[in-house]
């Protein structure tokens, strides 16, 4: 039993997430199926919106998985198959948004915020230079030395 446990763990690690793809949807050609599977992970289910069509149980997601596989079986390239769905549902179906003029804010917005924040932080830190302290006078130096001497325990010991 104890020896079986690590083996069971090893098998558990091998199992990937199952997704919602039903066996009857899958293509018999493993290479085409692999392409379809990979693409369907990058396409958004327009019903559930934060799931890919690969993960979603919605009937529309199932329809789109089947359409995707039909396109790929018909000889579409990955790009063409995705473009087919984008033409119908807009680029919202792409979980990984393409870089375009209207997605520039999406791609570079965080960088812009970081830049503005960083510049602000630098300006603020520079403005906070340490306070200027005047040097001690000769009298003060002597007094300080005196104090330090009396505060030293070993010097007190010796004075006894």
């Amino acid at each position, binding site marked *: 039993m104890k020896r079986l446990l690590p083996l069971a763990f090893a098998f558990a690690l091998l199992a990937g997430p199952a997704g919602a793809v039903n066996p009857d949807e899958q293509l018999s050609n493993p290479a085409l199926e692999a392409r379809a599977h990979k693409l369907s992970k990058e396409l958004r289910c*327009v*019903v559930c*919106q934060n799931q890919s069509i690969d993960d979603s149980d919605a*009937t*529309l997601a199932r*329809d*789109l998985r089947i*359409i995707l596989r039909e396109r790929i079986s018909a000889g579409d390239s990955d790009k063409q198959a995705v473009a087919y769905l*984008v*033409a*119908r*549902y*807009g680029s*919202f179906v792409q979980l990984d948004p393409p870089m375009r003029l209207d997605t520039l804010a999406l791609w570079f917005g965080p960088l812009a915020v970081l830049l503005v924040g960083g510049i*602000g932080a630098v*300006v*603020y830190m520079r*403005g906070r230079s340490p306070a200027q302290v005047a040097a001690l006078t000769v009298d003060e130096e002597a007094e300080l030395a005196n104090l330090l001497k009396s505060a030293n325990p070993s010097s007190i010991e010796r004075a006894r």
Partner: protein
Amino acid sequence: MRRLLFVLPVVGFFILLGVFFAGLGRDPRALPSAFIGKPLPAFTSAPVRPGDTGLSTADFDRGEPILLNVFASWCGPCRVEHPVLMRLRQQGVAIHGLDWKEDAAGGLKWLTEHGDPYIRVGNDESGRTGIEFGVAGVPETFVIDKHGKVRYRHVGALTPDDWEQKIGPLMEQLRKES
């Protein structure tokens, strides 16, 4: 200058707050159609009413703006919007229907039970015609202009408010377009 540096982030924060607050009231399902400004893809569909011709692209060439309502008898919100459609039809608004993802018998039963507000109505049992239009679910209503181009997509039940504030005025404006 230094004061501006302190005020700027605060102003930025409040602008963001405003944007996010406005976003709270928005329906995340209400996405613009990918067909805005474009004609509907060519299609034909089987009839729902027995002995009828169904719905096809040619039915949108009527010289007047028209609504395309995608519905199904299994859809809850369709029940809510159906009286609104019936009333609009009485007022003379042109509406075509597409019965989505059910057999024609289901659609016919729905129309006999609740009334039939459609000029032409087609059946889309596989759902493929709706998918061609980018339909994500039912009900959805498209505003089609005189030239058969999609001008607006409404997701979810059509309420009297939606009609009065958005779709009615849009139809009026499209009617005036040459």
